[in-house]
């Protein structure tokens, strides 16, 4: 129910703050809770019924239905498109691991104090600025076509390799900023306490600051990975046959857009559980925060 309410969690938060941590006990099957559930259900049904009615009665609906929701094309393209999605899964699994490592290294380097290390901070800052500024698809193009085009002996020619490299470079820039926000959110007194015990700066970071920082940024990290999953389709531009490229091939054969709808559904099925999981984590952290802020 709470998921529906516009300010559900906020309301309960206010309640906790106002009454000193003890919201009034409610009966389990509250009359008003039941009523608002029913209202929410009804308004949802009415809304979607209305949208469905408008779409189905639109003048071009039959043509659109034929192009996007064609049963025959659907049956033909599912066995093509779904296995091609394995390439995307491989791609983001490999890239995710590399991103987690590279981004952490960048965030740590960028957080190091001291005048001597200014060049390090400068370089990481330029890296982050550059890869956040240039559209990812251009990086994919430049790496995927440019580097093999140099014709240097021993340089890989497999577009999958460049797909992994490009996505890792681009996403590490974003993810390093997420890590950095986490590092900055750990109070300096934690580092002071660690250093006062004789731990080195690296040890303080490794055992005290990073474990707390990473725990705090898990939800935004997952959020970035939802984005990464979707962006794996961009590598179709350099000839990796993944789910989107396969759908294009099918579309070219059938002159029908249904394969794209199949792709959309595959991503929905893949992404929604991760999105819900992220929401659940955020809600859990929020509850903990409220519990600790007594």
């Amino acid at each position, binding site marked *: 129910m709470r998921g529906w309410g516009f300010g559900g969690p906020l309301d309960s938060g206010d309640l906790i703050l106002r009454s000193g941590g003890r919201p009034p006990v409610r009966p389990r099957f509250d009359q008003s809770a039941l009523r608002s559930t029913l209202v929410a259900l009804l308004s949802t049904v009415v809304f979607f019924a209305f949208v469905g009615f408008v779409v189905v009665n639109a003048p071009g609906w039959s043509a659109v239905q034929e192009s996007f929701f064609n049963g025959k094309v659907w049956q033909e393209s599912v066995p093509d498109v779904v296995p091609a999605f394995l390439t995307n899964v491989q791609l983001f699994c490999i890239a995710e691991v590399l991103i987690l490592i590279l981004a952490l290294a960048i965030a740590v380097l960028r957080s190091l104090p001291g005048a001597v290390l200014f060049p390090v901070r400068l370089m990481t800052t330029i890296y982050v600025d550059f890869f956040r500024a240039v559209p990812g698809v251009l990086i994919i193009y430049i790496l995927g076509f440019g580097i093999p085009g140099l014709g240097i002996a021993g340089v890989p020619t497999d577009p999958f390799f460049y797909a992994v490299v490009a996505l890792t470079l681009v996403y590490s820039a974003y993810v390093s900023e997420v890590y950095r926000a986490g590092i900055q959110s750990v109070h300096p007194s934690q580092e*002071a306490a660690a250093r006062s*015990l004789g731990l080195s700066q690296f040890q303080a970071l490794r055992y005290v600051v990073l474990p707390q920082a990473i725990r705090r940024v898990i939800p935004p990290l997952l959020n970035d990975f939802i984005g990464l999953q979707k962006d794996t389709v961009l590598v179709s531009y350099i000839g990796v046959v993944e789910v989107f490229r396969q759908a294009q091939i099918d579309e070219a054969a059938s002159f029908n857009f249904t394969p794209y709808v199949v792709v959309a559904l595959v991503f929905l099925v893949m992404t929604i559980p991760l999105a819900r999981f992220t929401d659940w984590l955020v809600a859990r952290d929020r509850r903990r925060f409220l519990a*600790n802020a007594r």
Partner: protein
Amino acid sequence: MNELVASGPESSTAAPPALEIAGLWKSFGDLHVLRGVDLTVAEHEVVCLIGSSGCGKSTLLRCVNLLEPIDAGRILVKGKEITASGVDVNRMRRRIGIVFQSFNLFPHMSVLHNVTLAPRKAAGKPKARAEADATELLERFGLADKRNEYPDRLSGGQQQRVAIVRALAMAPDLLLLDEITSALDPELVAEVLNVIRELARGGMTMVIATHEMGFARDVANRVCFLDEGVILEQGAPADMFSRPREARTQQFLERIIAAGRL
């Protein structure tokens, strides 16, 4: 536990003092917090720093722990200058424990892990020995049953006692206490002060910044009144609290008495 009997400041003239601070200056921007502090603390001595908020008590302790770089002066621990250039700061800090007002326990670690982290990682103790030693210390301070709890499950007093144990686990030569009861609910202050009393009886050298004048009178060998970045007056607690010489000290103590804190 009582093998280290408090021997008083005067008996240790041959050995270098536990702590020697000479001409210590420290400023934050234009704000000169310490303006030439001189302080010598003998082995097994307990020195309390008193003074109004912002007089530099905490800054002085943070400088001694090398958490703040100093502008001028020297700090020596057992005759070794810790503020000299080229000194291994991490090694020096292991010999100087500090306990903070806000506990600063590591919230993602159990009590035992909090206490054993530095002995294991900074001093290189094997895990089993570090845990055995930590358990012994926790038992001594009545925290044995909390060893697997996380800090947020403990009361403020318990957290502060864990923080003291964490500092003691490095077997420091010198313990600095920075207003360690100021963040506690009044009914929890006694349990923490009792720990300090026990440490004083055991001969631990301590420099204590505090607002608890009764405690200072009770536990200190010497009380130093810090005012405007210098130690304006110091002496035995009995003299300091009953016959302060300086007008500023008298003023300060009058305000404390008016507030019912002495």
